[in-house]
């Protein structure tokens, strides 16, 4: 079920401060965040975030299409490269 509109988008409050200071400092360095659950807001557009995936910080360049999604959606937590087909064949 979708979240109630009257609550507004969910976001961890400290992200706003972080984004603001990054904006103010001018140079767009990667803002490291752990808050994968936070919604991407319009004021984040243009900034680059390093979203933690439990292993490293993946850079996410926010564009206007991403608004409304969560940060975690852009930083996959699992690595699956596919099954190698020939391994079993060699053994038998």
């Amino acid at each position, binding site marked *: 079920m979708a979240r109630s509109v009257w609550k507004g988008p969910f976001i961890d409050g400290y992200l706003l401060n972080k984004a603001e200071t990054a904006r103010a400092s001018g140079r767009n360095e990667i803002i490291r965040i752990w808050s994968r659950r936070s919604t991407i807001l319009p004021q984040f557009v243009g900034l680059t975030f390093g979203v933690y995936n439990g292993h490293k910080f993946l850079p996410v360049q926010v564009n206007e*299409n*991403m608004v409304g*999604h969560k940060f*975690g*959606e*852009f930083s*996959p937590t699992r690595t699956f490269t596919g*099954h190698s*087909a*020939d391994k*079993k*064949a*060699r053994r*038998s």
Partner: protein
Amino acid sequence: MARIAGVNIPTNKRVTVSLRYIYGIGPSKAQEICGRLGIPAERRVNQLSDDDVLRIREVIDREYRVEGDLRREVAMNIKRLMDLGCYRGLRHRRGLPVHGQRTHTNARTRKGKAVPIAGKKKVTK
């Protein structure tokens, strides 16, 4: 034979049923349309007057997104997700289930027919 919303030619079925042959119109929308135009539920398409057919066609053209337009919209939404590089887009790209279902077993609708593992040892004896 009645042509509504382009290619669709529903048959000698009830109006509420035959409208559902249009992509984008299901049970509830079909009933909604009939209710709004005052067409009784047991009326069949071949019993409709030309005027009724015209009114149905008009309502659908005006207020519902069906067939090509709807298909295009759905495809656009999926394309947007894929271009965005988000998790759901990745799942679409790989042809795996998008809504967090298990893939250990099942998920055959998205994955297609099961392929045997290449070179798996054959049972002898």
